[in-house]
């Protein structure tokens, strides 16, 4: 069936990926171990578009001097006002595309794309 060496190689790659994971929390757009972080800085959600698999918990952290918030256009989720260093988490159970913004600053927009669990990403 599958050559043993290929399996070992894949395992090694997986271990390396896991090891690299925690060091590269913010900014990763690939599905990563939860919680996945969106950094709020300089009046921007970073990354602006984040793709995760269903069941992933996304955490937004406000690293700005100004307060911000996280509010889905559909009302699916909404944070309290986030002062500097405050954070907010939401677990995306259902696949879909979630457009959200900051209720303080209408020019700030972000998007979470949730792929089905186990499906091709």
């Amino acid at each position, binding site marked *: 069936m599958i050559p043993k060496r290929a399996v070992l190689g894949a395992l090694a790659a997986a271990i390396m990926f896991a090891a690299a994971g925690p060091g590269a929390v913010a900014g990763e757009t690939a599905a990563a171990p939860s919680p996945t972080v969106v950094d709020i800085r300089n*009046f*921007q959600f970073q990354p602006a578009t984040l793709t995760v698999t269903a069941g992933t918990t996304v955490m937004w952290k406000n690293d700005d001097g100004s*307060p911000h918030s996280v509010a889905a256009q559909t009302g699916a989720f909404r944070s*309290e006002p986030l*002062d500097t260093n405050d954070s907010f988490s939401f677990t995306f159970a259902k696949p879909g595309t979630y*457009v959200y913004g900051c209720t*303080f*600053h*209408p020019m*700030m927009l972000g998007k979470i794309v949730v792929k089905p669990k186990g499906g091709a990403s």
Partner: protein
Amino acid sequence: MRDRDDKGRPDADGMHRRGFLKCMSWAGTGVVWSLAGGVPKTLGLIGEADAAEAAASQPTFVQISDSHIGFHLPANPTPEKTLGEAIAKINAMKAPPAFLVHTGDISHLSKPDQWDTADQIIGGAKKQVFHIPGEHDIADLSNGKAYLARYGKGTQGRGWYSFDMGGVHFIGLINVYGFLPGFQPSGLAQLGNDQLEWLEKDLARRPASTPIVVMAHVPLWTIYEKWGWGTLDAGQAFSYLKRFGSVTVLNGHIHQIFQKVEGNITFHTARSTAFPITPPGPEPHFAPLKLPAGKLGEYLGVRTVDFAHSKGAPALIDSALVA
């Protein structure tokens, strides 16, 4: 996404940033408005001799804005103190104003204790206060319901209202909801169709000779689109206001004074009682302005409005907390 064009491109009115900055040569924490003769008139900054003189013979009101109780950063770690100074300034006016208007951002984070503090301090003026919310007052999970429960008695919809005083028709508009269902995020403030319909009806039965004062938190005219300083659907509101002889628009939000005259409509933004904000510039976003020690009071203020004298626009007096 965000427009990062740093060039001094003109805004919708063809004004370049440089020309714009020239227009913001004066600022104040409170402006005295006079109501005499039914036409609003600004008298200048509180404390100025002209203002005191004019106010002595005419009804006036005072605009305060952006008190941001709960703000704690170096630009002003004690906004409750500076709000208190603004109220003390109002109380020291030789001719007390008829009432106060607060054009939003009473609190920093929509917290009940922040509103409690603000109410207690502003209550020191012992005047009727007309409020409209800023985006900082509707940021809690109730999405504005907590604000309405406290400040929205007798208002319509999300908190808009009108009233008549001294022959002037006052209108409080709400343009701080950017994320209600049905609202398309545009980067600018929005009034929304339901409010615009109400405004059309509210104005329809009034004669064109009625002086109008419109209050809204975010500027109704586009000052700086990149930073969201404008209102997407304000043009619709202006179409209803066009036929009136005198329309005065009082805004807050940007913590500095800008003025513009467009036909029969004059636009005025107000100083904050808490902290100034950077003027429009190439930076991707605005920020509180941290000033050298002792300078803050010069950038905060109140506005007195005089409705008297001429048949033109009302006279405004912007006065700094510390001259």
